[in-house]
């Protein structure tokens, strides 16, 4: 049986893992290659690097991080942030990433999903989404780190993404992100029910039981968290033990 995946995410700026709240008071918390290696030892099923660098130089540094990680970590690696063209996708995959995560750029130019899937295969195109509720059971899609509301209906968007050939969706809820009260289950369930590609839950994990809850109450394929793992409040291993004790199949 397919195992539910636990995915730690590392926010990287200029080659360093950083953590900050709403991009303010960002602090460096470590070397991304070492952090990825540590997560690998804890049993992470995949590792996501989210590049928050804006500059061109920073991108090159990010690719070095991927290259160095791929030499010693043998689980799938995903890179997101700032990927806006087929060339960006190619460069990132060549550095050793297995998947790229496209977000704002895909909203502005949905063709990027189709081009990426046609050339490199659906399996490496993950579409990241930031969404927020506007009414019960209704959400819209945001871009630029959750700052701009595009007024696009979330469910319409996920169906379009699937049609364009995306292999996976990473769904982040702006409403629950950073609140640490658990994943946004109504939003998650609505998206999982609307598509047949895997959906990763993101945004809101604050305690051990939140992961199992997402798996028990929705059919999401994976759950992602950043700060919870960064600050060593929980290890991937602890999360998996909790899931296992509740009858959820994990590796």
């Amino acid at each position, binding site marked *: 049986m*397919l*195992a539910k995946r636990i995915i730690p995410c590392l926010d990287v700026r200029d080659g360093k893992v950083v953590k900050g709240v709403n991009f303010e008071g960002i602090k460096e918390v470590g070397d991304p290659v070492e952090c990825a290696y540590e997560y690998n030892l804890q049993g992470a099923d995949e590792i996501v690097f989210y590049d928050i660098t804006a500059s061109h130089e920073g991108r090159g540094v990010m690719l070095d991080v991927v290259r160095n990680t791929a*030499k*010693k970590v*043998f*689980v799938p690696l995903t890179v997101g942030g700032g990927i806006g063209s087929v060339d960006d996708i190619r460069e990132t995959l060549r550095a050793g990433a297995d998947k790229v995560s496209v977000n704002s750029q895909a909203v502005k130019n949905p063709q990027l999903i189709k081009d990426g899937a046609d050339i490199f295969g*659906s399996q490496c195109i993950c579409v990241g989404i930031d969404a927020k509720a506007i009414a019960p059971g209704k959400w819209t899609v945001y871009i630029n780190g959750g700052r701009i509301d595009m007024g696009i209906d979330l469910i319409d968007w996920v169906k379009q993404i699937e049609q364009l050939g995306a292999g996976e969706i990473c769904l982040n809820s702006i409403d629950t992100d950073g609140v640490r009260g658990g994943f946004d289950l109504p939003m998650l369930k609505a998206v999982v029910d609307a598509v047949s590609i895997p959906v990763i839950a993101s945004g809101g994990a604050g305690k051990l039981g939140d992961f199992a809850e997402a798996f028990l109450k929705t059919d999401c394929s994976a759950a992602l968290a950043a700060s919870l793992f960064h600050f060593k409040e929980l290890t991937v291993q602890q999360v998996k033990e909790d899931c296992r004790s509740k009858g959820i199949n994990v*590796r």
Partner: protein
Amino acid sequence: MIAIIDYGAGNIFSVKNALDYLGAECRLTSDIKELEEADKLILPGVGAFPAAMDMLKKSGLVRAIKEQAEKKPLLGICLGMQLLFEKSYEFEECEGLGLIKGYVDRIDEPGLVIPHMGWNKLVYNHDCPLFEGLEESYVYFVHSYKAFCDDKDLYAYCEYGSRVSAVVGDGKFVFGTQFHPEKSGAAGLKMLENFAKM
């Protein structure tokens, strides 16, 4: 030396990274002479079956791979495994390398999330030298098509809806894994190490 066949498909660097990590001598190549000189071959690949067969044909590699597979171990990974079969129905009917009897078709069962993406548990069906030293193992899959073959050629499978062929072979030199051993943590590295030692 292990030749990793470079025909323009897929993330071949991951396979090289894993073999380098294991200290196994390897080379990325599309040179037929190097395939002849190598002790073993790995056929990697992600993407679509017809496009990959097309690239193999254009590189003049089809005959070379078939010839070498009679003399030395060959490991196909993911799409590389699917290419070992007689044919595939991805987009259109397309002839494969025909090294293992069987065909490739879409995973098509109602209610299943597609692609089959993530870690799934191997169920061992027949002994295979790749399994030496392995116990219960989860390995990383990502695919939307699967191989249908004779039970004797199916060394291991996993459950996803119905059975998914996970490790296949011809009983001699040809092996294939639908999952990515180079992305399957310690279990995958062990299988690559077993292959390198063959």
